[in-house]
């Protein structure tokens, strides 16, 4: 399984999608101070109060952007993953080796997960260090928020990866995009319900959000960073049911991919 994971990692690092994603990430990092300036906040070195709040907001926005870029990168990297391997015959050679089909799929997934987690952690920690060194504030709430970004990116990656067992890249993209749009829009019922004080609408809206739970956890990023500079980090926000649900969601998707692949006739 480790061999497959390392192979996946090495392959993906050289892919055009990865290079394009890294390019976008660098542009985003370079442009971040501009967004911060237009948002009215400035990072004040060594100060507290207003400067610290602005820095926390900056980190919150930056992490929100990283969350989005990370999810799209994960999507593009894994869209054709298994399907392409099957089509070009690579999988036929791997599958005839003394490895179970479940280990092959899990190994591929682990490679992508390691790559995307590594990407988010590196970019996220660079951002954090820059702000921490600039302000002298630890912004410890940022750490669990960064862990949530890793979780979100892994969720999106697992969804497209699992679907790639069934569908080619284009169909996979359409399906995942539709799920994303449907979840985002239908979950607005939740907002409307909350505004009107209607419990039923709130519950229905939340149920739609469960189709792709990245939005639910994503919502917590900003509040975690902005509201808790200097607080003790609460890793993975214990007691948060949505986080637990997202972890189960990933496990269930991976299991779905494994089961489908175990019965699949390859090319």
């Amino acid at each position, binding site marked *: 399984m480790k*061999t*497959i994971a390392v192979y996946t990692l090495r*392959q993906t690092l050289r892919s055009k999608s990865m290079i394009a994603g890294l390019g976008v990430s660098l542009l985003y990092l370079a442009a971040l101070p501009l967004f911060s300036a237009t948002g009215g906040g400035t990072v004040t070195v060594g100060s507290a109060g207003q400067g610290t709040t602005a820095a926390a907001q900056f980190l919150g926005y930056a992490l929100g952007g990283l969350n989005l870029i990370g999810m799209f990168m994960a999507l593009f990297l894994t869209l054709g993953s298994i399907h392409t391997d099957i089509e*070009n*015959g690579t999988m*036929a*050679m791997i*599958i005839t*080796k003394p*490895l179970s089909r479940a280990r092959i799929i899990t190994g591929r997934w682990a490679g992508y997960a390691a790559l995307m987690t590594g990407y988010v952690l590196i970019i996220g920690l660079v951002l954090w260090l820059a702000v921490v060194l600039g302000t002298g504030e630890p912004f410890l709430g940022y750490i669990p928020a960064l862990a949530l970004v890793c979780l979100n990116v892994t969720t999106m990656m697992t969804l497209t990866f699992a679907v790639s067992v069934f569908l080619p890249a284009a169909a996979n993209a359409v399906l995942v995009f539709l799920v994303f749009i449907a979840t985002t829009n239908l979950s607005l019922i939740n907002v409307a319900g909350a505004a009107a004080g209607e419990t039923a609408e709130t519950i229905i809206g939340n149920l739609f959000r469960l189709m792709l739970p990245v939005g639910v956890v994503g919502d917590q990023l900003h509040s975690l960073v902005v509201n808790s500079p200097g607080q003790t980090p609460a890793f993975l926000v214990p007691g948060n049911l949505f986080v637990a649900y997202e972890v189960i969601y990933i496990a269930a998707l991976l299991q779905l991919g494994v089961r489908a692949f175990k019965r699949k006739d390859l090319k």
Partner: protein
Amino acid sequence: MEAAIEIEGLTKTFGHGPDAIASVDHLSLRVDKGEIFGFLGPNGAGKTTTVKMLAGIIFPTSGAARLLGKPLGDVATRARIGFMPETVRLSTFMRAEDWLGFHARLYGMDAGRSRARVKEVMARTGLAGRAGSRVRDFSQGMMQRIILAQAIINEPDLLFLDEPASALDPLGRRDLREIITGLRDRGTTIFLNSHLLSEVELVCGRVGILNHGKLIRVDKLGDITGPVQVVDVKAEGISSETAAAIRRLAAKVEFGLDGRFTATLDSEEQLGKLAEIITRGGGALKEFSPRRISLEDAFLEEIGEDGSS
């Protein structure tokens, strides 16, 4: 003799209901250990489907098979099996030696053993100087060589080759023949699926002919191609008596110019008698070329010229 491959009623159907097509239809076959078995058939006969079922790439609709004494799908047995697929277009960025190292590690080899085997198979498949080249930049022929290399990296006891020579040049085909016979000499069983009948003829001991998913004949190569029946001769100084004796011996004789003639004989034993008649009659033999029915002729006869057998 112990069996390397035992197939019993293997069937693969594609589609459902009235549109279902049996690509392989109740195939039963046995290949002994150490054999080079040629698997022949026209396009769409079900050869590749059969190999894919045996290699575990697709699942049979019904029937069963055992490889090296273990049922299909036994993961541990795959450590002793090699598989070379028919058409693969590798798009990997990896260097040839890294890509082969990856396949060696999939067989559970440690780093040292993997390095040694990669070096060995690269030399054996004519890729010695290409260790650092990117696989995606390889020509089709080089691609076929490296795919063969991954199939033999574990020194398999059973090797499936699906059209292994289709993209190889004459030099590559010669190398392939040497690899195949070398593996046979160390006891490897080889299941060779090929359109190139001339290649099959050179290395296989036994062949099976598949048509429309059904196995229509399995026999030793010599029994399929049959004994020598026709001989081309060039001789000088053949008298009319000698010519008459040749006519009496052969079922059919066609005399040409410059002492050339073609004789059709009833048995291979008559070859010696024919040569004796010519030399005893005072003739000088310049050429004596027995002709065997080629595998291609035998194959076409079995499946019918239009594949309609």
